[in-house]
């Protein structure tokens, strides 16, 4: 177990540097004139172009720029965005609200998906199962660009049950509606996977054995079926967590949450390489850690799985 853990950590270091290098290279390739992008449609004054070009080493070749960036990164300095803000500060502002939002979304989404999935897996073919089928179909068919403004219009503006927008220092209640919207993104797949997995395991030999031993129905489902059925679902949840943090661009925009998704969007729009790479490097770590946790959870859920 311990050796496996160390091996994974070493792999993570390699993946981290590889990922940041690729993202930096991609941003560099996409960059043609970040300073003009900053000025919008105004003519960029020559003095400003000159001063900023030297400040951000924009006249240097790629490998030198990457060198400067890595040098800063290894000393804990994420650099400055093109508007002069410390990217470290921007991350300190953006990450807390995104983590809160993603956690709330995943908890709401997963709780709902697993509970409903188990019930519809047990009562396969019944009215409950059919209605969840229809419900997931609707959810899958509604893209977030429709769902988020619609939820805001109905629950935020018309009924005023929730605040219409959240903001950076949002409270639990302000984030509830965005979290539900964001959580609904993952509900459909998680629900279907749980249902299929439960339905399959109910017919397996070990469940029949458990029943034959005379175990209570609750115990059979709660311990034997559920634990084995959760393996694919946990994998999904782990991947979804990273996805929710990086992919909340639309939701964060609609509910005015200046989090990670918003900052990534801003960085890409203004061709701000260091800004994007800074956020992506943390995202990489999130993905790597959540994948590691998922793998370790397998061992806990299924005693047959052992790591060496």
């Amino acid at each position, binding site marked *: 177990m311990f050796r496996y853990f160390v091996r994974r950590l070493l792999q993570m270091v390699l993946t981290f540097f590889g990922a940041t290098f690729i993202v930096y290279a991609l941003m560099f390739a996409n960059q043609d004139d970040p300073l003009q992008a900053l000025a919008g449609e105004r003519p960029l004054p020559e003095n400003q172009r000159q001063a900023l070009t030297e400040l951000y080493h924009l006249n*240097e070749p790629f490998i030198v720029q990457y060198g400067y960036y890595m040098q800063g990164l290894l000393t804990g300095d994420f650099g400055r965005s093109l508007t002069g803000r410390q990217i470290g500060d921007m991350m300190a502002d953006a990450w807390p609200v995104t983590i809160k939002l993603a956690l709330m979304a995943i908890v709401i989404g997963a709780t709902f998906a697993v509970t409903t999935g188990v019930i519809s897996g047990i009562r396969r073919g019944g009215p409950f199962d059919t209605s969840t089928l229809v419900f997931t179909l609707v959810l899958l068919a509604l893209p977030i660009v429709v769902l988020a403004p619609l939820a805001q219009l109905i629950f935020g503006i018309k009924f005023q049950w929730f605040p219409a927008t959240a903001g950076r220092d949002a409270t639990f209640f302000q984030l509830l509606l965005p979290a539900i919207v964001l959580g609904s993104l993952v509900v459909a797949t998680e629900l279907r996977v749980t249902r299929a997995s439960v339905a399959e395991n109910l017919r397996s030999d070990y469940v029949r054995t458990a029943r034959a031993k005379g175990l209570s129905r609750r115990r059979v489902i709660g311990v034997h079926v559920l634990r084995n059925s959760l393996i694919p679902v946990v994998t999904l949840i782990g991947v979804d967590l990273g996805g929710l943090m990086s992919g909340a661009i639309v939701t964060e925009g609609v509910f005015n949450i200046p989090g990670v998704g918003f900052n990534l969007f801003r960085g890409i729009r203004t061709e701000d390489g260091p800004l994007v790479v800074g956020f992506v490097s943390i995202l990489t770590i999130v993905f790597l850690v959540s994948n590691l946790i998922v793998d370790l959870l397998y061992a806990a859920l299924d005693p047959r799985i052992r790591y060496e």
Partner: protein
Amino acid sequence: MLGKSPLKMAVGATAIALFVAGCSGGGSDEPEATSNTVIIGIGEPQHLLPSNTTESSGAQVLAALYYPLVNFDAQNNPFLVAAESIESPDNKVWTVKLKPGFTFHNGEPVTADSYINAWNHGAYGPNGNGGAYFFERIEGYADLQSTDPDEDGPQEAPEPKAKTLSGLKKVDDTTFTVTLSAPFSGWESVMGYTTFYPLPNAAFSSPGVLAEGFEEAPIGNGPFKMKGKWEHDSQIVVEKFAEFKGDPVKVDGITYKIYQDQKAEYADLVAGNVDVQTQIPIESLGTAPADLGDRFKKSPSSSFAFVGFPTFQPEFSKVEVRKAISMATNRQEMTDQIFLGSQTPATSFVSPVVAGYRDNSCGEACTFNAAAAKDMYTKAGGPAEIKITYNADGGHKAWVDAMCNQLIANLGIKCTGVGEPKFADLLTKVEKKEPVGLIRLGWIMDYPLMENYLGPLYGTNGSSNYYGYSNKEFDKLVAEGSAAGTPEEAIQKWQQAEDILAAEMPVIPLRHGQNVFGHSQKVTNVVVDAQARVDIFKIEVAS
């Protein structure tokens, strides 16, 4: 091995996660509905330093923190504010006398040095201030700049010859003179812009060097002072400065709430969480009159939209071709159907907000007449196929396509709208003289003078003259207007220059912008000026 009951564990983990997520939030202080403060929505400013602020969000906040030398009335004529007098016998040497008794928010008195130091810092090239070009007219500006010997190469630009503008001279504590390199009758108006605010000594860590972190909590001489720091991407809170000696304000504080997305801001406006939105997004224009009733308002803005003809494309060299394309464009239909009345058709080359504007100075060439246009186009042998190039990130596709369809229908030619990802991509193609066809452009004024449209857009060395128009007679008239003795004489010259444009049609004027704004029931007297800023002296809380 974990516990025997995964279900209980899951429930426990859920509870903990929700608890943690909930706890860390708490304690955001909601502004009380009864207080005498207002909330104005803005975008995240790029900078909060006067000489580096060239976009409206930053200018909006600085307008509360600083008090300009001159302000503008409803007709956009300047009147004295922080200055007691601004005089010039020859339009070259301007003497500015300050009203006594004003202090910065930290107690420092506002003196002539506050202006001179701020302007020197702003104009010094290596400081990289976006508004530095405003100081171009002051004598000695060139000595504060330096050019990189090898453009993008590894060599660094040498240090400029001087650190201070030779045209700025202190007379006494409240008087200073500004010497321009050439006479300019509109200089008083120019000094009303954001870039010309003073800075206290506290802004500098050593002479000419801005103190680290000054922008996070700027210290100004205006009616409001910062309450706390600039909370990036969240809000900027200002409160009334008790010792302020200028015009009284009617609210005790303003919260500038920062939005990433205008649609989110609009949702908050309808829900009553923000009091003023200066620009309602086009997606919401359809429902806004019903949502807001008489709180949905319009006011003139300085923005001007047009398409330019690149002079390097010979097919547009005949003036009849340019005129015919202009006459085949139905501007009214475009503003009504695409912009739902939020913009107005443009039939002149400057915005209606500046003095000297004449309605329909473009004349027949900007009047929709499909039959005459087709006739003229065919006779002049205009190209059978044209392109209109625009930047795809600015929401221009709809009207460019509409304009193309009009040209297809009215001229019987092929027309395609070509979207470049960004404005910079469009400029790159124009610089390389690639056949881009008509180019979509826009302009927002820096100071309310006709010259601010004529010079940058159509002058031979104009900063935004991307299409390469050049006419010596025109340049001469603009320069003569700038040097004229009185504003009236200046306007006369500039109008003559505009007539040349009408005859030559280097661009097709399309639309004048409007501020389409809305406010909540909590506030009244909301005035949005031509630069899209809320007038902080007029706004008040409804009783």
